[in-house]
């Protein structure tokens, strides 16, 4: 892996430093252990991946038979996927481009073909639903997409009609070729909304001129000629034999209108009673494209009020069939000739937990439940069908049901059976089977993780009990002895139980052992390798995931979170302060109002903590976590509002006193990207602030893209680097250093640039400034220890480049005991080197270990979904161009402009993570091991060992051989000793 000459130079080193021996040992291990990739039998041992698709926009079931297993969804993440409806597993998934370019406008399903319009009417695609392969793709004319439907000729579906803002086009279903395209008349004034075909020789297009009239245009199927054009008045659906049913929210009236009428028809008006402020919605169903829609339809009159109506045969009068109140959702489902209506209603009874057939994922602690019932109703009569009730629990804090997809089928006895897919507001999908069995649940909110933290698990009950025993005061000798004995007995019991469990599990096959993590049995393992992943998603749902197995242990949905809200997750108290529970705080800021709310919860159980929250009447700009702790061991969080006043949380007397004492040493900085302004503040004793510095980067030239300080839990073991002549080059370890990255507003390849400013956050002093000319973003960067690594696009050479900046104090330390930004007269020496990287990247993070002894690696997320573990050794500005004795001594790799990508460095082998958005690293209890979570569309968790596992025996360590050799030697010595004694005795007798 490394150049062979380097290995030789290492073994032939002429002198080695004594104090460096330990670190050298580590380095040499990393140097000689060539393979970094996992072995085949290690796959899935300590890593897992979960694949998600995002919020469902369209869902279809494959066919209406009981045995069909496939369902198809198209989501807001531009993903078209297929699930196995029995297990909820992903069968296949197509990830399209992000943004509007790949957005899915509509998904239509007919037989084996799934038709999709992509990118606001840019492309029309047909997929084979069996294998998920693309049948064909057709480029559509420009124009924003409005509607699409299947068109049938003589009872067979052969065409698909796509309605755009200004044109209507027909395409063959078999090959995507265009049959004809026609421009729509008056497309500037008329908003064309719907396209309809009832199996006749005509295609109808419906357009609305707001507050004026309706336009119905009929086209001939054959050549696209306009057969007739009718202009009438207002949200419409087609019901029955071509009768247009419209509801006007302004007049709160229902209008009916036959489309095929010869002369300008008259609207018949029916007035409605609608709950105030609600827009009535019509739901109709067309079971087959070659036939007319049903004459029954649903009218939604309130948030949970639906009415099933029927259009009488005369086409003008409407008869109410049934009134559903309360009803969350309604849906039509067709199987064979039968069409049924499914209605979801809330039930006020509380569920008995034993009745829930799948209680494993439902812990009574975390999910308050509400019962929901789904019933089937005959469409013709409105009567409830017998034995069709599905009763299932709905999480109260999961948001209301949002959509209902019914898969109806005929059973053997010709009755209608069904399964339902319920989508709730938190993007979760639940698949329910009769009679109320939850088959699976998919938490699609996890497709959009915003931020996350890893929290140590608590000690076991027995361990905690022991801790508690030492914490309590002595109450007499005898009770203390008793208490000690009892706790020892419980420890023994726990140990025996553990042994028994080990023995029991050893007999079971490996697959079954998993999935047994519950919130009650959760406890810290001996090396702290298992942690709780607290994930915050964009939809406002919080998850607690076990890092070892990936199972979701708790979830909590925050309602009333704006879609564009900013989140900041802060761990205020870790699990180290028993009996105080750990505490996390989520700061949610509404972008529109600027107001922030705090959600304080226990990260292990997900329960909301009942702590008095500070009132935050003013918009919050930033937060700042202090290392100061209150008497309950919670770190103090400062919230800075728009008047630069500071609110402390928690704000007890003790905390306020501490804050007053150390106010003069608390600083914070704020960056306003829109004004190009960096400013620093100092806290005053009365919790107001004073501005002490300001740096302005003119927004006409460049804009601030990102800023990163150092991670607060980062430890740097070595304060310097050993040179070849055994002197020390001390690192410039300024904890207050900020890396500010700017991009030029001018994007011309010749004039574009990327700037990196290293600013001291306390004094505002610009320590270093690096401007990369002819470079363009997006810039990804990592700031750690004494280095900054950033990646940009070189517009001149048209390639991606990595650049590394390293800061050194020189061969002497200015002050080795304390670091104060206010007393640092000398600027550091800055070294820089740049390398060519053969791939664009999407995100970057550095590994983190407990003590910082292990060498660092950079974890680079590539667009291909691979995560590359790149040794920091390759990004070292001291890499020499000419190899000298000294550089050999330091193990510096000679400079080469090209940075290699070796496939063994991919830590996720073939488990690609689609659209990696962020990588989170956390230290474990083992110095060699760093926990890594990559999130994006998928979530992937693994461990990395940047310097190999120097503190752990290998997986394939031969315990049997070693112990048998030891035992054999032991017995051999015993026997030979005995033999020697016998021999001596015999000789003495001779």
């Amino acid at each position, binding site marked *: 892996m490394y150049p062979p000459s380097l290995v030789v130079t290492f073994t032939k080193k002429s002198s080695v430093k004594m104090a*460096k021996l330990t670190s050298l040992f580590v380095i040499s291990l990393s140097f000689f252990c060539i393979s970094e990739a996992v072995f085949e039998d290690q796959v899935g041992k300590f890593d897992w991946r979960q694949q998600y698709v995002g919020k469902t926009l369209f869902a279809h079931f494959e066919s209406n038979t009981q045995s069909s297993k496939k369902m198809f969804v198209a989501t807001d993440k531009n993903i078209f996927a297929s699930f196995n409806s029995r297990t909820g597993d992903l069968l296949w998934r197509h990830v399209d481009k992000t943004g509007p370019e790949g957005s899915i406008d509509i998904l239509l399903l007919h037989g084996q073909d799934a038709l999709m319009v992509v990118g606001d009417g840019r492309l029309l695609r047909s997929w084979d639903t069996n294998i998920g392969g693309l049948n064909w793709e057709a480029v559509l004319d420009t124009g924003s997409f409005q509607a699409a439907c299947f068109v049938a000729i003589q009872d067979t579906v052969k065409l698909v009609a796509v309605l755009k803002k200004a044109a209507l086009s027909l395409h063959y279903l078999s090959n995507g070729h265009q049959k004809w395209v026609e421009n729509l008349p008056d497309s500037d004034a008329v908003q064309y909304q719907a396209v309809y075909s009832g199996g006749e020789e005509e295609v109808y297009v419906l357009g609305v001129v707001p507050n004026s009239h309706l336009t119905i245009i009929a086209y001939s199927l054959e050549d696209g000629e306009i057969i007739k054009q009718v202009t009438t008045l207002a949200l419409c659906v087609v019901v029955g034999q071509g009768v247009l049913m419209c509801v006007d929210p302004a007049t709160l009236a229902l209008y009916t209108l036959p489309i095929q009428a010869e002369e300008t028809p008259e609207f018949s008006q029916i007035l409605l009673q609608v709950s105030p402020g609600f827009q009535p919605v019509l739901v109709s169903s067309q079971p087959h494209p070659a036939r007319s829609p049903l004459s029954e339809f649903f009218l939604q009159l309130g948030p949970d009020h639906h009415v099933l109506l029927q259009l009488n045969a005369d086409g003008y009068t409407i008869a109410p069939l049934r009134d559903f109140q309360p009803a969350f959702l309604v849906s039509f489902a067709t199987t064979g000739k039968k069409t049924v209506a499914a209605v979801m209603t809330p039930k006020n009874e509380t569920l008995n937990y034993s009745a829930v057939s799948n209680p494993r994922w439902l812990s009574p602690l975390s999910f308050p439940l509400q019962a929901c019932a789904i019933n089937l109703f005959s469409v013709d009569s409105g009567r409830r069908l017998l034995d069709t009730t599905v009763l299932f629990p709905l999480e109260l804090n999961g948001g209301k049901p949002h959509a209902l997809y019914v898969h109806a089928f005929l059973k053997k006895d010709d009755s209608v059976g069904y399964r339902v897919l319920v989508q709730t507001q938190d993007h979760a999908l639940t698949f329910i089977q009769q009679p109320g069995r939850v088959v699976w649940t998919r938490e699609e909110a996890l497709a959009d993780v915003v931020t996350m933290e890893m929290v140590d698990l608590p000690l076991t009950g027995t361990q905690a009990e022991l801790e508690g025993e030492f914490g309590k005061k002595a109450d007499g000798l005898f009770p203390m002895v008793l208490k000690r004995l009892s706790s020892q007995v419980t420890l023994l019991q726990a140990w025996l139980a553990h042994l028994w469990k080990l023995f029991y599990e050893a007999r079971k096959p490996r697959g079954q052992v998993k999935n047994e993590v519950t919130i009650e049995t959760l406890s810290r393992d001996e090396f702290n390798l298992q942690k709780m992943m607290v994930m915050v998603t964009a939809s406002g749902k919080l998850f607690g995931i076990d890092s070892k197995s990936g199972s979701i242990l708790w979830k909590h949905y925050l309602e009333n979170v704006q879609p564009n809200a900013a989140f900041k997750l802060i761990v205020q108290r870790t699990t180290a302060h028993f009996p105080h529970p750990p505490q996390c705080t989520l700061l949610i800021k509404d972008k529109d109002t600027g107001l922030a709310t705090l959600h304080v919860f226990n990260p292990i159980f997900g329960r909301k903590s009942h702590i008095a929250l500070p009132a935050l009447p003013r918009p919050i700009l930033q937060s700042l976590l202090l290392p100061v702790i209150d008497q309950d061991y919670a770190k103090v969080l*400062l919230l800075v509002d728009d008047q630069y006043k500071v609110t402390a949380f928690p704000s007890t007397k003790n905390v306020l006193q501490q804050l007053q004492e150390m106010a003069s040493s608390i600083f914070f900085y704020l960056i*306003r990207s829109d004004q190009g302004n960096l400013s620093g503040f100092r806290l005053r004793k009365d919790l107001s602030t004073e501005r002490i510095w300001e740096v302005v980067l003119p927004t006409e030239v460049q804009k601030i893209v990102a800023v990163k300080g150092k991670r607060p839990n980062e*430890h740097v073991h070595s304060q310097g680097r050993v040179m070849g002549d055994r*002197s020390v080059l001390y690192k410039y370890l300024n904890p207050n250093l900020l890396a500010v990255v700017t991009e030029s507003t001018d994007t011309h390849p010749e004039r574009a640039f990327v700037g990196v400013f290293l600013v001291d956050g306390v004094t505002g002093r610009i320590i270093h400034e690096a401007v990369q000319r002819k470079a363009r973003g997006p810039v990804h960067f990592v700031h750690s220890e004494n280095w900054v690594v950033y990646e940009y696009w070189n517009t001149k050479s048209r390639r991606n480049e990595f650049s590394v900046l390293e800061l050194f104090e020189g061969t002497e330390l200015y002050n*080795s005991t304390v670091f104060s930004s206010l007393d640092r007269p000398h600027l550091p020496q800055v070294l820089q080197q740049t390398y060519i990287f053969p791939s664009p990247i999407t995100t970057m993070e550095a590994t983190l270990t407990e003590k910082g002894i292990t060498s660092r690696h950079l974890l680079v997320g590539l667009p291909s979904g691979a995560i590359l573990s790149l040794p920091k050794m390759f990004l070292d500005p001291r890499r020499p161009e000419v190899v000298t004795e000294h550089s050999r001594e330091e193990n510096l790799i000679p400079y080469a402009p090209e940075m290699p990508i070796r496939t063994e460095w991919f830590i996720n082998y073939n488990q690609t993570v689609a659209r990696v958005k962020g990588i989170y690293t956390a230290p474990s209890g083992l110095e060699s091991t760093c926990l890594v979570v990559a999130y994006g569309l998928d979530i992937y968790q693994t461990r990395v060992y940047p310097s190999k596992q120097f503190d752990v025996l290998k997986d394939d360590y031969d315990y049997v051989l070693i112990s048998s050799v030891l035992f054999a030697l032991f017995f051999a010595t015993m026997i030979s000793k005995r033999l020697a004694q016998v021999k001596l005795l015999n000789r003495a007798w001779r």
Partner: protein
Amino acid sequence: MSDRIVDGVRKHTPSILLFFDESPFSLLWLWLSTEKRKQIKSEKIGIILYIAMASPGGQGGGAVSTRGAGARRMKWALELSLGNARGRGDRQSNQGDVMYPIGYSDKPVPDTSIQETDKNLVEKRCWDVALGPLKQIPMNLFIMYMSGNTISIFPIMMVCMMAWRPIQALMSMSATFKLLENSNQQWLQGLVYSVGNLLGSALAIYKCQSMGLLPTHSSDWLAFIEPPQRMEIMGGGMVL
């Protein structure tokens, strides 16, 4: 002479045997069976002799062996016949097929007559002991040169030996003085002996230095520097 040295080797140098013999198993066998130990063939003696000569510990070992036996051991004789050597050895195990005549005393009769030549011999012998460490130095220099400055198991072992020998010898100075007490120039000899040993240890230290094993550079103390305490608390970021 061979007997004394064999004795010395037997008593003090199992480790040396292990390191220097090509076949440690043969020596293990030699060591384990007391029976065989007494029947050392002359070529084996030769090998061990060679080892003892080559090993810098030969001299010191000899000194220590004489210490235990006291004045009696000063009178040594070269017995080439194997039978006699065995007879001497049998003293301890009380096993012998030779019947001693009545009145035979195992203890040698002390020779009370002191002669001038004996005195010279003692003097010579004492000087031999005193100059031993100094004589080792050229040998050590040669080994030093040969082993190089690489850190690997053999040079490290050499250095350890080189450092440990003189220290061990200096620690057992009293025994050496006892050895030298018959000499007239006892103090001078003692001084020469200790100077020789000090030179030997200085050589070992020099070797350590050139191998980079001495913590004489600032980089050697790097691991003990504590991270500086931070005086200011800072935080913040982009406006949310």
